[in-house]
């Protein structure tokens, strides 16, 4: 493969496809658990999205480099070793530099290991493609994951707590003086599910490719 084809149309699709047509959360419905758990506020959601970005893109490259050496019988164990190593690195970095966020995310950083998006991409893509492509695929999928996380967290934090990144937006706008109250339901996990559901509904209504013909 020549170098100038690195950003060819096909490779660009690797980046853009997971954002909409093949979004890991709203279309493949993977990684829902973390999407519900850490989207109460924007800050942990962004940190989570970045952590997954690092883990997924690096794991994709590593596994892609080793893809010809991994015996197919033990490939899942190999995936887990690679992912777990990366997750521990990410966890240590978070603890060192943003300790409060790391405490908020608590067990969910560790649970990136079990995030089905990562294992899914390693199995479906990295095992069959060269490192460059695998890297792009990792980036694209974590963007797709992250964008949903951030959208959901945006609405949940804004409506549930009236803040954005901890900044009291609604208070500064003065809507509480009009009698507005924070919606306690948005803080609860069920509303995360409803929010993701509404996103899926809106996406399917807009994107005709996603409508199944039966």
């Amino acid at each position, binding site marked *: 493969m020549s170098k100038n084809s690195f950003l060819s149309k096909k490779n660009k699709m690797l980046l853009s496809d997971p954002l909409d047509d093949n979004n890991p959360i709203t279309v493949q419905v993977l990684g829902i658990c973390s999407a519900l758990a850490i989207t109460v506020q924007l800050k942990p959601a962004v940190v989570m999205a970045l952590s997954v970005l690092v883990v997924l893109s690096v794991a994709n490259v590593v596994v892609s480099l080793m893809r010809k050496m991994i015996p197919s019988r033990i490939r899942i164990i190999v995936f887990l070793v690679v992912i777990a190593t990366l997750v521990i690195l990410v966890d240590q970095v978070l603890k060192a530099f943003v300790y409060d966020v790391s405490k908020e995310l608590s067990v969910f950083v560790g649970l990136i290991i079990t995030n089905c998006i990562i294992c899914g991409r390693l199995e479906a893509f990295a095992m069959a493609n060269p490192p460059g492509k695998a890297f792009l695929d990792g980036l694209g999928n974590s963007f797709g994951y992250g964008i949903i996380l951030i959208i959901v967290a945006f609405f949940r934090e804004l409506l549930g707590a009236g803040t954005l990144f901890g900044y009291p937006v609604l208070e500064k706008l003065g809507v509480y003086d009009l*009698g507005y109250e924070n*919606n306690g339901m948005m803080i*609860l996990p069920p509303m995360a599910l409803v929010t993701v559901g509404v996103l899926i509904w809106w996406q399917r209504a807009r994107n005709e490719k996603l409508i199944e013909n039966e």
Partner: protein
Amino acid sequence: MKLFKNILESVKPHFIKGGKLEKMYPAYDAFETFLFVPDHTTHSGSHIRDAVDLKRTMAFVVIALLPCIIFGMWNIGDQYFKAISESSDFMKNFIFGFWKFLPLLIVSYAVGLSVEFAFAISRGHSVNEGYLVTGMLIPLIMPVDVPLWMLAISVVFAVVIGKEVFGGTGMNILNPALTARAFLFFAYPSYMSGDKVWVHGAGIDGYSGETILGALAANTTSWANLQWSFNDALMGFVPGSLGETSFIAILIGALILILSGVGSSRIILSTFIGGYLTALLFNLWGVNVLMSTPAHIHLLIGGFAFGAVFMTTDPVTATQTNKGKIIYGLLVGFFAIVIRVFNPAYPEGMMLAILLMNVFAPLIDHYIVGANIKKRLKRVKV
């Protein structure tokens, strides 16, 4: 009537196919079929169309709700003037309650119907009539002082998430009126529970607007020592949301529903029986106040009776088979009392019990139908 007919006839050409407002036909259709018996005929097969269509069935429920509404409006006024210790008469109470109820009703209908019309037009089907009843039920199960914008949000949530995402009236899994209430209950708990919200003016002069259920759930005074008598609970001279307080008014509604064949007597009776037996069972245990409250009192207080008559009988979300209806009712009664006695944070177990059983209703039907098929297959072999 003639006037309406003339208006409808004159604007009809704009709405039918090829007209300027072709897209708005569902809206036109809604008004026409609401006011007059539609002239629709079947085109294939032998069907007989009854004059009692869904719109008229719903109208029966609204009629059955009237005793509750009238009593509720009077009671709102009565409770208010008691709270500010001012003397009042029948009309004064009634008029006060009327002006408290009207804004809730207007917001409920205006918001809910706008959403329904918007969906009907964008999807091109006729407007669902289910909202006629839902819109009436919602203000009846809300605290009197609930802010109108909260009511509007909960109505939008109930109609969109509770109903339209599943395909509209007839397809919904959860009772939309209760979905609205549950949404408000979890989103703004301080406006939906406690001792300040049920009586307008409570909190002034240290008057406690606590409901019977709230007082019992506090686990300090037993039913016998409360300020309310059996008669108060039966007639409904107690604080509570507009529709739920009077057992007698609800009973009249239940009779109208059963006699007109709109509500299922199986569901209503089995819900009461299920609740009664469960409460009786807990009387034997009796480790907290609500457990040792007499079983018949459990049926009178809180939203139990209102839920049993008007919410469980919702033909869409309840079970459809006869046996299933009895199981469904018994379980609603059972869970309502269980939630009540075990969970002091949510003493109003009826709402959660009905929503829970709404989810299980299709499963109950599935097994009843399956059992019936098995039974008949056996007969074939022999």
